[in-house]
C-alpha cells in the first residue's frame, strides 16, 4: 500500500478490500447454514451484527454533517474517511432484507394472532405492522442516501475543481442543516422500530438518543483505528498528527460521559417510577446471568473508559488510543447484544452455536460493508485535497 503524494490516492490497496470480501463470503456461507438450522437464533445474532455496522455507518453520516455545520478545522483531514463510511451506508438497505425475512421470529407484534389476543398491540398496530415497518425503513434509508450521496458528490467535486470561493463548502454546509434535523429524527425512529419494538410493550422516549450515543462512539473509535492502520503503513503520518488523536480521544471521552448520562437517565426514571410495564425491561436484563452482562456494561462502557481517558496523557498515546478504540467497539457490540438478546435468551447461557452465529453474522455484514467502504475510500483522494481549511487542519495544535 502506497500513497501517491500528488493526488493523495492509495495505490495497491485493493488487497484489504478483497480480504474483507473473502471474510464476508465465509460469513455468508456460515450464515446460510445457520439460517437453515437455527432459525430464530440466527436472526437475533444477525440483527445484533446488522445494528452494530449500521450504527458505525450512521456515525459517519453524523460526523460529516457536524463537521460541515460547525465549520470545523481540525477534522478536515479525517473528513474523507467519515464521508466514505457515510457513502457506504446505503448498502445496508440490502442487508436489511434478512431482517425483513426474520420479522416473524424477531418481532412479536408482526404475528396477527398475537395482536388479536393483546389489547395493547391492537392499539399499537396502526404504527407497528409489517407493511408500515418496511416502508419506514425504506424512508430512513432514502434520507440517509440523499444526504450521504449529495455531500459525498460535492466533496469529490471540490477535489477535482478546487474551491477558491468556498462555494462548494458553503453548499455542503447548507445541506447539513436540514440533514442534521432529519438525521436526528430518522435515527430515533429507526432505533424505535428496529430495537425498541423487540419488546413491543415497553417504551422509552430517550431510546433513540441512547443508540445515537453508541453510534457516535463507534465511528470515533473506527476512525481512530483506521488512522492507526494508515500510520502503520506510513501513510498520512505528517498530515494526521498526535493532535488529531488527542481530539478524537477528547470526543470519545466526552461521548462516554454522554452515553452514561443518557443510559442513566433512562434507567433512573424507570427505577423511580417503578411501573411494572416499564421496569420489566430491566428485570429481563437482570434475570439469570444477564445481571453479569449489565454490570459489565456499567463498568466497561463508563467506569473504565472514564478513568482511563480522563487525563491528557493517554489521549496523546497512540497505543492507549488503539486499545481504547478497540475496547469501545467491543463494548458497543456488547451493549447492542444486551439490548437485543434478552428477548430471546432469557437467562444468558454461553452457547457455542450462538457464538459461531455471532461471529459469522458479524463477518458477513461487516466484511461486505467494510469492503464497500474500503473501495469507496481508495477510489478517491483520502483527504479532501482542495478543502480551503486543509492546511490549517494539518497544522492544528491543541493549546
Amino acid at each position: 500500500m502506497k500513497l501517491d503524494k500528488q493526488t493523495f490516492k492509495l495505490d495497491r490497496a485493493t488487497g484489504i478490500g478483497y480480504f474483507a470480501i473473502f471474510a464476508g463470503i465465509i460469513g455468508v456461507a456460515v450464515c446460510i447454514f445457520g439460517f437453515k438450522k437455527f432459525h430464530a437464533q440466527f436472526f437475533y445474532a444477525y440483527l445484533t451484527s446488522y445494528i452494530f455496522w449500521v450504527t458505525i455507518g450512521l456515525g459517519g453520516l453524523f460526523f460529516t454533517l457536524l463537521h460541515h455545520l460547525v465549520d470545523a478545522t481540525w477534522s478536515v483531514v479525517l473528513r474523507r474517511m467519515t464521508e466514505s463510511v457515510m457513502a457506504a451506508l446505503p448498502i445496508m438497505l440490502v442487508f436489511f432484507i434478512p431482517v425483513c425475512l426474520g420479522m416473524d421470529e424477531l418481532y412479536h407484534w408482526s404475528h396477527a394472532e398475537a395482536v388479536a389476543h393483546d389489547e395493547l398491540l391492537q392499539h399499537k398496530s396502526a404504527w407497528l405492522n409489517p407493511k408500515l415497518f418496511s416502508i419506514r425503513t425504506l424512508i430512513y434509508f432514502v434520507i440517509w442516501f440523499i444526504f450521504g450521496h449529495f455531500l459525498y458528490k460535492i466533496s469529490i467535486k471540490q477535489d477535482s475543481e478546487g474551491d477558491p470561493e468556498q462555494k462548494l463548502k458553503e453548499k455542503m454546509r447548507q445541506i447539513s442543516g436540514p440533514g442534521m434535523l432529519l438525521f436526528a429524527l430518522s435515527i430515533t425512529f429507526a432505533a424505535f422500530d428496529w430495537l425498541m419494538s423487540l419488546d413491543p410493550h415497553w417504551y422509552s422516549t430517550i431510546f433513540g438518543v441512547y443508540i445515537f450515543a453508541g453510534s457516535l462512539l463507534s465511528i470515533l473509535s473506527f476512525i481512530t483505528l483506521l488512522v492507526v492502520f494508515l500510520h502503520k503503513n506510513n501513510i498520512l503520518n505528517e498530515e494526521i498528527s498526535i493532535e488529531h488523536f488527542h481530539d478524537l480521544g477528547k470526543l470519545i471521552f466526552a461521548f462516554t460521559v454522554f452515553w452514561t448520562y443518557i443510559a442513566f437517565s433512562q434507567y433512573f426514571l424507570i427505577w423511580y417510577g417503578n411501573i411494572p410495564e416499564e421496569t420489566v425491561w430491566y428485570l429481563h436484563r437482570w434475570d439469570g446471568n444477564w445481571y453479569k452482562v449489565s454490570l459489565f456494561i456499567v463498568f466497561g462502557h463508563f467506569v473504565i473508559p472514564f478513568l482511563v481517558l480522563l487525563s491528557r496523557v493517554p489521549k496523546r498515546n497512540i497505543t492507549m488510543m488503539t486499545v481504547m478504540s478497540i475496547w469501545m467497539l467491543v463494548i458497543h457490540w456488547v451493549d447492542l447484544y444486551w439490548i437485543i438478546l434478552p428477548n430471546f435468551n432469557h437467562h444468558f447461557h454461553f452457547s457455542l452455536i450462538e457464538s459461531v452465529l455471532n461471529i459469522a453474522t458479524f463477518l458477513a455484514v461487516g466484511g461486505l460493508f467494510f469492503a464497500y467502504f474500503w473501495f469507496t475510500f481508495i477510489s478517491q483522494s483520502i483527504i479532501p485535497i482542495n478543502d480551503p481549511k486543509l492546511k490549517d487542519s494539518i497544522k492544528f495544535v491543541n493549546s
Partner: protein
Amino acid sequence: MSNSTHEIEGVLAEFSNPYELLKAAEKIRDAGYKKFDCHSPFPVHGLDAAMGLKPSKLGWFVAMGGATGAAVALLMQWWMSAVDYKIVTSGKPFFSFQAFVPITFELTILFSAFTVVFGMLLLNLLPRLNHPVFNSEQFKKVTDDSFFISLMADDPQFNSEKVKEFLESTGGKNVEELNADE
C-alpha cells in the same frame, strides 16, 4: 517619583507582533531565565512551549476536587436518608444509590468548578494588588496593540545591564527598567 534611589524590580521590552514575541520568548527560555512573563492583548498559540512552561498541574487538583465532591455528596445523602432521618420513600431502601446520583453528579461538578477557579488563582499567585509593570507608561498599550516581555529581578541570573542588552538583542524595543513604588 525619583528613580535613582529605587531598587530595580525588573526590565520591560516591547515587541511589535506575536511572532517577534514568540521568537524572543524562545531565546529567553534558551538563555535559562525563569522569572519572565509575556504580555499580549490576546492569547498567542504556542507561547506556553516557547516560554518553556510545563502543562499546568491544575487538572490534578480538579480531579481531587471532583472526587471530594462525589464523596461529600454520597456521605451527606447516606447520613441524611439512612442514618439521621429515615423516611421510606416510594418503598425504596433507605440507601438507594440511584436516587443519590443526581446530587452526587452536581456536587462533583460544583467542587470541580470551585477547584478550577480558586486553584487557578492560587497557582497564578492571585489576587495581587499591584505589579511593577503597571508603573510603566508604555505598558498601557498591552491591552490595545502591543506585546511585552517583562524579566523580573528575582531571577537568579538577573543583572540589569546584561538583561537590557540581551532583550535588545532579541529584538525588543523601548527597553526600560521597572521600579517599585515609593
